[in-house]
């Protein structure tokens, strides 16, 4: 029983970090209406940036946010501006361009394999950072400290993002564009600038996720693929475009992965996740909190 509770708590903690990795996906989808297949690779890049920042300076991993978030924002902003924008301009009429999915897949392949080329295939991790291997002892239960801080960070990030989109001028411009591109551009909002911003913000949240992962997770060139596929599942479960939905979707996946092995072979939980995903796609494609689109 105590194990079940411990697994549940750890599942929620890890799940919220999964949710954090998927936040960027959902923001980008909400505005651009495309699934960014390169999101996992951007997370991977952010993890390398975090790793080297902490490795070379020796600061507390969470302090590296000051470096990682701006770097990733700029990276995402210009990735959208240079690579993806031309396609939007070419396919103005298409509401949900498949071509963009394909291009982001190309970006994924390039980033993953360039990293492989530069840093090699080996797994890297921060051996002696302030959080590694630390545990809270709660009665008979062990709760991972870095995952706990990841959980807190996920909640804070989602809250900030929500506040930003609801309350600030730029946030309103972003939401207006996501609701109606033509009408908002008639109001003087440049849609392409908003796309760049949204992409930058989405990539920056991947940077935040990378910082929470680094204290206890390995970095390697294909680490993004794991989170990529999970991210797709999470955002569809939670509802594409919904911030709270992404967190909830992440927690569902985290719970299945951590509680599931009590009842079955651990490798089977992956199959359960895919099955759940397909059931949702077929029965309720708009997800738990999603806006109803005319799919």
């Amino acid at each position, binding site marked *: 029983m105590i194990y079940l509770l411990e697994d549940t708590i750890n599942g929620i903690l890890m799940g919220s970090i999964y949710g954090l990795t998927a936040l960027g996906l959902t923001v980008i*989808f909400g505005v651009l209406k*495309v*699934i960014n297949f390169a999101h996992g690779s951007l997370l991977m890049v952010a993890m390398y940036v975090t790793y080297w920042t902490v490795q070379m300076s020796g600061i507390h991993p969470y302090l590296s946010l000051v470096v990682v978030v701006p770097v990733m924002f700029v990276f995402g902003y210009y990735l959208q501006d240079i*690579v993806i924008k*031309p*396609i939007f301009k*070419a*396919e103005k009429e298409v509401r*949900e*361009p*498949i*071509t963009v*999915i*394909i*291009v982001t*897949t*190309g*970006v*994924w*392949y*390039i980033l*993953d*394999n*360039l990293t*492989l*080329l530069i840093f090699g*295939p080996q797994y890297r991790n921060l051996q002696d950072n302030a959080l590694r291997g630390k545990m809270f002892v709660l009665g008979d239960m062990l709760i991972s400290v870095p995952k706990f801080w990841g959980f807190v960070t996920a909640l804070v990030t989602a809250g900030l993002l929500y506040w930003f989109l609801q309350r600030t001028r730029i946030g309103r411009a972003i939401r207006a564009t996501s609701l109606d591109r033509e009408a908002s551009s008639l109001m003087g909002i440049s849609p392409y600038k908003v796309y760049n911003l949204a992409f930058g913000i989405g990539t920056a949240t991947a940077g935040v996720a990378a910082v929470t992962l680094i204290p206890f997770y390995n970095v390697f060139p294909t680490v993004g*693929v794991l989170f990529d*596929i999970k991210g*797709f*599942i999470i955002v*569809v479960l939670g509802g594409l475009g919904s911030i709270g939905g992404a967190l909830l979707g992440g927690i569902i996946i985290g719970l299945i992965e951590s509680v599931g092995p009590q009842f079955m*072979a651990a*490798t*089977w939980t*992956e*199959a359960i996740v*895919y*099955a759940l*995903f*397909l059931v949702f*796609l*077929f029965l309720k*494609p708009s997800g738990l909190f999603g806006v109803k689109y005319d*799919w």
Partner: protein
Amino acid sequence: MTRRSINQSACLLVAVLALGLPLVMRSATYLHILILLYFYAYLTTSWNLVGGFAGVLPLGHAAFVGIGAYTSTILYLQYGVSPWLGMLVGGILATLVGILIGLPTFKMRGAYFALATIAFAEGIRVMIENIDRLGPFVINGPRGLQIPPLKLGLSNFMFAVKEPYYYIILIMLAAVLLLTYCISRSKLGYYLNAGGEEPEAAMALGVNVARAKLIAMAMSSFLTALAGTFYAQFTLYIHPKSVVSLDLSFEIAFIALIGGRGSIAGPVLGALLLRPVSDFSRIYFGDTVPGLHLIIFGVVLILVMLYQPRGLQEPLTRLYNRLVDRLAGTEGGEASA
């Protein structure tokens, strides 16, 4: 010389070249590369039936390759059924699965359909990796299945040399190209095209878009599964990571997209241009620059999507047509003079 006769002689030239190559080329390595090239051309052409003509983006075709490969291999190893028969059984099984995926997913648009097919293929991979025995069938989980090359011969689809494989996959490729040509000229082809470009308008005209897409999906999954059996018999060893991997699904889609989806020549051109890149970069740079061919794939994919969204077949077709025009023009001029 008329345009028609030029086209005919060009086709004849290609056919003679393809048929005669193994007689000239004695290197087993190059033959192997060529066989895989045709294998990919076959796969992408089959993919194109649904990914190109139906205007959706399936990213899980490796599932069908896996179903074909595993079905025929299990039937052969455990029951001694000839792989040729197993190929058909695998194809029929894949068709059923394809229809099962298509029924609910064709209602969805672009991104959702792509995600559903990925999840489906990955789910099948996870299942194969986790199951050692499924009822009476030994699947062998992540270790895969090996076919001992004991009884060689046409009836067992096993040969000591590569030439027979070359001709088998060549015939399969020619057949699927012919099928694609027929479909593109048929009512079904027009339905698919209309449904892919303007679904609302097509439906308003009474075209049953969903049904047309479902037929395309059924054919595509059937044909893809046949290639799975071919692969199993060619390499004599299959495991989940080789035949049901996400990488394979993506590579099929990439080659078709770069070549030009929705055209007949596009997928073949894509395989013709990209497979050598991937093979030779692995031969020469495999240890110094791992993943070089994937970087090249990514860059080419982005450039093609930016500047030639209809694929490389478009400028090449234009070039070919201009060449034919010039030939026909000058020849015609001489004849009249």
